[in-house]
């Protein structure tokens, strides 16, 4: 009963083209985690409020739990696995999160990292209010956010000293 139709889906994730087949209702979060094995993207609420599943699609932060995988074809998807350089050098946002103790259990962290990355790409020198505004859609239950804000500020410094 109810055999589901499968579709060939092609996704561009972290610069690599990935093909798999899945029903049309497969969420992008589930496709990344289950079909592509990119389990760095986490699912915290499945209704778009916690921000754990945030990935970048064409450089914009998007809730992958509210996006169908099939709808993300022909777009450039970036996940936490693609943040560091190929040689393992951490992205400044990653380095800053470690330096500032901006994570505890680490479950919400990928969502914060992707959100912060998008912010710094768009606003390389954000003020405190812009930082707060940017991450105001991501929940963290462990850190109280203080060190997350500090880390994004520190990432700005790292990026500027990198140039």
């Amino acid at each position, binding site marked *: 009963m109810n055999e589901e139709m499968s579709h060939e889906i092609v996704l561009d994730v972290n610069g690599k083209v990935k093909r798999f087949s899945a029903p049309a209702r497969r969420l992008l979060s589930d496709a990344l985690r289950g079909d592509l094995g990119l389990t760095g993207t986490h699912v915290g*609420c499945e*209704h778009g409020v916690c921000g754990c599943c945030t990935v970048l699609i064409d450089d914009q932060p998007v809730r992958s739990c509210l996006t169908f995988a099939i709808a993300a074809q022909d777009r450039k998807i970036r996940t936490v696995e693609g943040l560091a350089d190929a040689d393992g050098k951490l992205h400044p946002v990653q380095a800053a*999160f470690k330096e500032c103790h901006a994570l505890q259990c680490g*479950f919400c962290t990928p969502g914060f990292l992707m959100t912060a990355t998008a912010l710094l790409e768009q606003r390389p020198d954000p003020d405190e209010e812009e930082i707060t505004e940017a991450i105001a859609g991501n*929940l963290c239950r462990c850190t109280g*956010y203080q060190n997350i804000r500090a880390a994004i500020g520190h990432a700005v410094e790292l990026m500027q000293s990198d140039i």
Partner: protein
Amino acid sequence: MTTRSFGKAVRRTEDLRLITGQGSFTDDAGPNALSLVMVRSPYANARVVSIDVSEAEQLNGVTAILTYEDLPGRLAEPLPLLIPHPSLSAPRTQHILAKDYVRYVGQSVVAIFAADRYIGEDAAERVIVEYEPKVAVVGIDGALGPNLVHDDVPRNVAADHSEHVGDVDSALAEAPHVLELDFEMERSMGSALEGRASHATWDRHSRKLRIQNATQTPTSVRFAVANILEIPDEQVEVFAIDVGGGFGTKVIHPWPEDILTAWGAMNYENSVKFTEDRVEHFISSSHERGQRHHAKVGFDEEGRLLGLDVDFVHDNGAYTPYGMIAPLITATQLPGPYRLPNYRVRFRSVYTNTVQVTPYRGAARPHAVFTMERTMDRIAAFLGIDRSEVRQRNFIQPDEFPYDLGMIFQDGRPAIYDSGDYPEMLNKALSMIEWDSFAERRSEAPPGKRRGIGVACYVEGTGLGPYEGGHVRVETGGKIQVSTGLASSGQGHHTVFAQIVADELGVPFEDVEVVTGDTRRFQYAVGTFASRAAVTSGNAVAEAARLVKEKAIALAADALEANPEDLEIVDGQVQVKGTPVRAIPLSQVAVLANPLRYSFSEAARAATQFAGNGSFDEPPIKPGEDPGLEATGWYSPIRATFASGTHAVEVEIDLATSEVEILRYCVVHDCGRIINPLIVEGQIHGGVAQGIAGALYEQLAYDEDGNLQNASFMDFLMPYCTEIPKIEIDHLETPSPLNPLGIKGAGEAGVIPVSAVIASAIEDAEGFEINQMPLFPSDLHSMRLASGREPA
């Protein structure tokens, strides 16, 4: 000397995998596992009349559907009562799947094993359950009313417990002043961002059941599964690699899904995974904080406490798997840092048709502190003395330790405060928040706003037993492998235990690798809760490291032909004190510690049988010795150690919106010797944030039929960064005399006094009594109207 890392803000070893997407949370494994999907009760109190799974079973991709009738053997019995207590006269635990009755919205009724979650949810929609609803018992008023949750539990009372010290009746009769006060706190919950999860795989070749579980206590999962499935412990391996927050919820094993995933894996010869979704977390994982207190306090003209009589009611939800631990903690932690010669407490733990209540970070201490600290504020107001002064006059003094409360704590042992300096802590907090000059700042409040200041103190029993153990092993490659049985959910255990071992053993921090919460590595443990991990496992790994050091020095003494007393270990080398040229690396000592027949490396040749080691008069392993440079250490505390703290806050209230803004939040915290200030401060930040959440934003709102109306992050207002202020922290370190490292727990501290201190500040700003938490703008607005203190 090796650079000591204890006390340093060492960056965490956990972080690299977590910031690169390489963490290993339970749901990350087993992409092809069968998905366990539960059908849950939509009624709070109902008889299950019939269940029809026939249509659901027809769906492609459905492996099996179980109801209570299908459960074999011990799976059909109620889940275990984890912590019995003599006062718990009517404990009740739920069945894995509902047997005849459901008693809360969210209770598991039917289990579906399907190819994936999507198909499982399709099937769940096709399961038809007929219920005969009964009147739901909701809230403390409901519990005290005529309707019953369990027909055989009269008055809905699970436990009625009393304790006392001194003679409260006489003290209150003779007290110059007596106040009667009422305080209430509503429900919230841990809300870890990762819900409950379990992934079980049955390996039919090795006959092992391997379980990765989002747990604070893998050994509990293991023993529960082995017992209920009636298989040997040795067949069950449980591990937690990364756990996305615990906060108490993940210590209450077994959950029905823990057992069903394991049983399903064995019976369907497959991997089975359960990953809770957010709605399920709200309606089937534990809640906490629902309590109503009545306090009667007697005091003298100076504000000194003479007697305190507290009677409170604890809403334990529909079942009591964790016994009466939460209200028992309120009862014993209520006296806080004050001398209370005459104290009596009675509580009733009552059933309601709601999700079970078990400890959530802070574990019923926030209620205790709210009651005690609000009482202290009322005494101050009554006598017209400063709130800080009434506290100073009642503090237990630094020279009074050990201070025996005369009560039995949650570990079943005497509650005896081990150390602390409460007066100094309050002084530090007052000076941080600039308490004395607040009048000036109050007068500077912008038009339409009122400012207030508050202070609250607490004492927290931490680091309780029964025990933890640790294992330290020096590998011949030079790495130091450390394991302990309790699990980690963000506390930085891998880092702090490595710091401890590095210092005790004399090796570089970077060489130490720690594994927590894996029964394959360490079989005996209790778990991560009650702010106990650093104290118990910390001291256990320290002991193990000391034993390894002793063994290494004995072996090296032979090799170096030196007196053991002349040897030390520095930077991973055993050397003659003052003569570092006579040295042997620990990795080589590890080779010598394992007499070999076969050599697998150049270094190992030194330990082979023709290498000319030892005397022919003794066996290669001498009597009483073991091969390998390794040891197991244990720490079993005589009783809990008591951490403490003082919080102070300044708030500004907008009279138009009744929104409370926190202008400054200051914490003085004493957890004994600090292993890693970065991590302790992180724990405090997170705790305070959860406290603020509970004080101003979060509530679990049940309607009269027992439906949780805000079971989503859209409606349950978990704070974002926009709601949480900067938290300023100062430390006091009074070492615990109870353990060699002098440490006390820090995990829960941040949350404990937050409701009390915010209430104190709001009351100070508004001039009317604050007796309940949480406090939303609408509540505050109504109270202001009722008080007649309308804004000008």
